[in-house]
């Protein structure tokens, strides 16, 4: 890890620290639970949030890599026509309302949503259904697997990170 990288931990408790001369950060006496860890450093693309479940005892080690941003970044704003005032309004506009566990994400490149000649990134989330709300014939049963598409994502092109901001769904 880079010396001076900033590490932020959020979950049962929140902590942040700066990497030492060896590039390490250590957080001690953390309560068990689910945490997101974010890494960032000057002039580098922030790492995707890394999610992990900390057990009640023992030690967990996480290695994070930061790379430069691509020469250009893309952002797509999704807006218009959505009533998000309440979960009832959101549910009325949705085909499915499901509690899921994200078990995998892949990002690929394809033709732009705008149907021009540019390329957009799309992230496919593989999810396992834990519970379906809004019961209908199309509602997937618990345990079934689905793929949910979302615009945007990050692709590691080796030397740099190509980033298309659209929506930030993480595991």
């Amino acid at each position, binding site marked *: 890890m880079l010396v001076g990288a900033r590490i932020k931990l959020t979950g049962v408790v929140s902590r942040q620290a700066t990497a030492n001369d060896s590039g390490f950060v250590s957080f001690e006496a953390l309560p068990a639970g689910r945490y997101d860890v974010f890494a960032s450093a000057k002039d580098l693309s922030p790492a995707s949030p890394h999610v992990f479940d900390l057990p009640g005892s023992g030690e967990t080690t996480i290695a994070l890599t930061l790379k430069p941003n691509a020469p250009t970044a893309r952002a797509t704003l999704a807006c218009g026509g959505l009533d998000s005032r309440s979960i009832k309004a959101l549910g009325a*506009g*949705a085909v499915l309302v499901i*509690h899921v566990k994200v078990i995998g994400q892949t990002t690929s490149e394809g033709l732009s949503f705008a149907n021009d000649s540019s390329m957009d990134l799309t992230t496919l989330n593989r999810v396992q259904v834990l519970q379906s709300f809004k019961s209908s014939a199309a509602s997937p049963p618990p345990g079934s697997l689905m793929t949910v598409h979302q615009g945007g994502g990050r692709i590691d092109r080796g030397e740099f990170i190509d980033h298309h901001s659209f929506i930030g769904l993480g595991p």
Partner: protein
Amino acid sequence: MLFLTVDGRGTYTIHGSEEGVFRIRNGRVDPLGDDGAASAWNGRSASTFFAGLQVATTK
């Protein structure tokens, strides 16, 4: 928790953008969005959220 729409090819996408995503972290609601329903449920207990969803999604 995902609120999903589907297109004519059967592709499921998130309803809206961040508004259709509510993460559950350590028994609490952690919405990806920041207004409307997201603001109303941010930090509340997951069990209360699920109970509210049962009511909200029942016609």
